[in-house]
């Protein structure tokens, strides 16, 4: 969709009552918001990175999402006012709230929570009903089986059940692979749709030893693609799992599988499908992350649309990328169940003629809960309610994570690590999932689990030299700010507690982090040892208590309200005027 087109649609949306003037109006269901005009002959629905959020949540979009090199100022690296301007979204309305951090606290109270599988189910049923029998497909981009206490306790099974009920036809994965390989295969077996991934192979030695393999000739661990007949159109959906899973997450759970971007193999697969399957449309369901998708779209030709996830970018319009064979559309559909992507396509005679795209925010107050899904959710949560519902403390400000550097909830986690483990410095991973708590709300165990629930949650307390701490910061900074997207892993910067530093995102490896200081102002000495606490170690299991218990202990001690004394975000260099940065004291 071009900008004019998008503007027109937004104009229509505005006229159709999507911009309520009062709290009361916002709570009346403006059904127009979810009535997407009929177009074309194929409807592709896309959800991604729901992170096991079965119930509605709050989710604050970032005010820091810096674009480096060629990505500067382009989608998805625009935030706040720049975002609204880039996508022609009116300020102050419901879309502004859905897509940006602006005025988050107040707007969240006005418009209420987002997502929830029961509300999503209602919307998806409606959208599929509009499309007509057999003309729509529901794709899930992965990061579905992880992110909540119940997903952890059921090893992802609660989400497999929810997705089956939701009617997911095709999925790919990333955090799905943080269970043990046998559990992953068992979950895939229970999943009623197709689990696809062209870029996961069984290692040669493992195949030689008889490890399960989808195709012995190609080494594919899973079905690489699936063909679907939608209203007479043949649609190929190729899967692309997160390429750096065994690097960003523990390899020990999935020792037999090797990943990678494998764009040459993607090209070969597209060519083979185009030659042998005679498709009318070729799409990729990707967990590359948007920057990697944009580069892959420029390198590989013959893909009509890449439906992307991983980087949690809620993009109201796709980016059109030129390549040797023509053009490829790249979307990204946000996270935590907040959005459903709807692409209507006019596909005729083996060609994509035209399309319409909407990224619909799932406002749970405006969509009645689906009864069957609600009952299912209540049922899977029931055995765990005592654990989930414990009230630990009260939020005195918006507690969130998303953004390139420490969010407020990260700071609470980092403060908890330092306090409970008596450490000078703490480190916490820059995940992009984790829901938001509003000021005055009780912080429940469930909120803590939303931020921390992984299958390798153990914490550590150990001595590190100043040089080691710098190495970690530099390494993660390069995964985030490398100018070549293929070297980016799609997470945010490692969160720090008790440590301030200066960061130059435009720098090269090992030159971005300078002036590291303890909270008392003391410069970090590369030779000197410091006591560091952290969690989520990828290499081997850490010895101490799971992170959620550490954070819960810390919060229980501050029953009446948790205070953040200092937000350890770095001072930034060379980012003046970067539209991926707002409301940040440089």
């Amino acid at each position, binding site marked *: 969709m071009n900008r004019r087109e998008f503007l027109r649609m937004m104009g229509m949306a505005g006229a159709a009552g999507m911009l309520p003037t009062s709290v009361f109006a916002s709570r009346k269901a403006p059904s127009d918001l979810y009535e997407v005009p009929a177009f074309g002959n194929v409807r592709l629905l896309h959800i991604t990175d729901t992170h096991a959020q079965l119930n509605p949540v709050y989710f604050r979009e970032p005010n820091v999402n810096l674009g480096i090199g060629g990505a500067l100022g382009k989608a998805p690296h625009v935030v706040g006012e720049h975002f609204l301007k880039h996508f022609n979204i009116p300020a102050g309305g419901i879309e502004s709230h859905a897509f940006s951090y602006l005025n988050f606290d107040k707007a969240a109270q006005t418009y209420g929570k987002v997502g929830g599988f029961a509300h999503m189910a209602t919307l998806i049923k409606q959208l599929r009903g509009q499309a007509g029998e057999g003309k729509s497909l529901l794709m899930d981009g992965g990061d579905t089986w992880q992110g909540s206490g119940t997903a952890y306790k059921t090893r992802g099974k609660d989400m497999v059940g929810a997705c089956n009920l939701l009617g997911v036809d095709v999925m790919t994965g990333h955090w799905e692979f943080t269970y043990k390989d046998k559990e992953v295969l068992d979950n895939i077996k229970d999943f009623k749709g197709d689990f696809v991934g062209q870029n996961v192979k069984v290692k040669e030695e493992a195949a030689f030893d008889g490890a399960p393999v989808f195709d012995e000739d190609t080494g594919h661990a899973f079905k690489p693609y699936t063909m679907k007949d939608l209203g007479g159109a043949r649609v190929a959906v190729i899967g692309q799992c997160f390429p750096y899973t065994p*690097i*960003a997450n523990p390899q020990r759970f999935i020792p037999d599988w090797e990943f990678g*971007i494998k764009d*040459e193999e993607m090209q070969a697969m597209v060519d083979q499908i185009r030659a042998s399957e005679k498709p009318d449309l070729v799409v990729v369901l990707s967990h590359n992350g948007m920057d990697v998708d944009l580069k892959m779209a420029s390198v590989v030709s013959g893909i009509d649309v890449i439906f992307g996830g991983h980087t949690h970018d809620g993009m109201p319009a796709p980016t059109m990328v030129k390549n040797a064979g023509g053009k490829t559309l790249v979307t990204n559909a946000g996270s935590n169940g907040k959005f459903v992507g709807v692409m209507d396509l006019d596909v005729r005679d083996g060609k994509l003629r035209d399309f319409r795209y909407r990224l619909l925010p799932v406002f749970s107050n405006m969509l009645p809960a689906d009864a069957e899904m609600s009952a299912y959710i209540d049922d899977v949560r029931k055995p765990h309610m005592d654990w989930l519902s414990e009230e630990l403390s009260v939020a005195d400000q918006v507690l969130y994570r998303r953004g390139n550097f420490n969010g407020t909830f990260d700071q609470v986690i980092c403060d908890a690590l330092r306090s409970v483990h008596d450490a000078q410095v703490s480190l916490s991973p820059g*995940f992009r999932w984790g829901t938001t708590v509003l000021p005055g709300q009780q912080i429940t165990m469930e909120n803590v689990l939303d931020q921390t629930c992984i299958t390798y949650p153990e914490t550590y307390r150990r001595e590190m030299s100043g040089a080691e701490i710098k190495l970690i910061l530099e390494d993660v900074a390069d995964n985030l700010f490398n100018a070549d997207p293929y070297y980016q*892993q799609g*997470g945010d910067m490692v969160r720090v507690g008790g440590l301030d530093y200066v960061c130059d995102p435009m720098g090269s490896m090992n030159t971005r982090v300078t002036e590291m200081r303890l909270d008392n102002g003391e410069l970090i000495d590369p030779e000197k040892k410091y006591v560091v606490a952290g969690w989520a*170690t*990828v290499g081997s299991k850490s010895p101490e208590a799971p992170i959620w218990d550490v954070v819960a202990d810390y919060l229980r001690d501050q029953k009446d309200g948790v205070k953040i004394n200092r937000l350890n975000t770095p001072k930034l260099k060379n980012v003046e005027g970067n539209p991926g940065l707002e409301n940040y004291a440089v």
Partner: protein
Amino acid sequence: MQRRAFVQKALSASALTALASILPASVFAAWSETAFEAKDVDSAIKAILGSNDISDSADIDIKAPEIAENGAVVPVQVTANLEKVESITVIADKNPSPLIGSFEFDENLEPYVSTRIKMGKTGNVVAIVKADGKLYRAVKQVKVTVGGCGG
């Protein structure tokens, strides 16, 4: 992958290194010791190929991961799309001993090497191809990360 193909690959990949370790050191000492023990890239190339006069070439394709899953076994494949290839030499420039191996080709062989190399830290994989008496080079960066914070 078929088992046969795997065996073939494994054999071709390990040919030189395996030989070097099985045979008594004295057999190879005469020509390879200086090259394999060289601590910098230039001396290693000079020792094994006799020259440092190398031109960059787009006809050499290095397939290696952008970020290694395991620095101890980084899969590297080199294909030389050049005429009269005599040898392919693989180097990891940041390794304490940068020379990984040098593979010689008969005229009838496809100039292709597949191997696994050990990389202690982020650096470049360098492929030097000797073709028709001249040296050509291609480079690909492979990151070896401390891992951990993707999300």
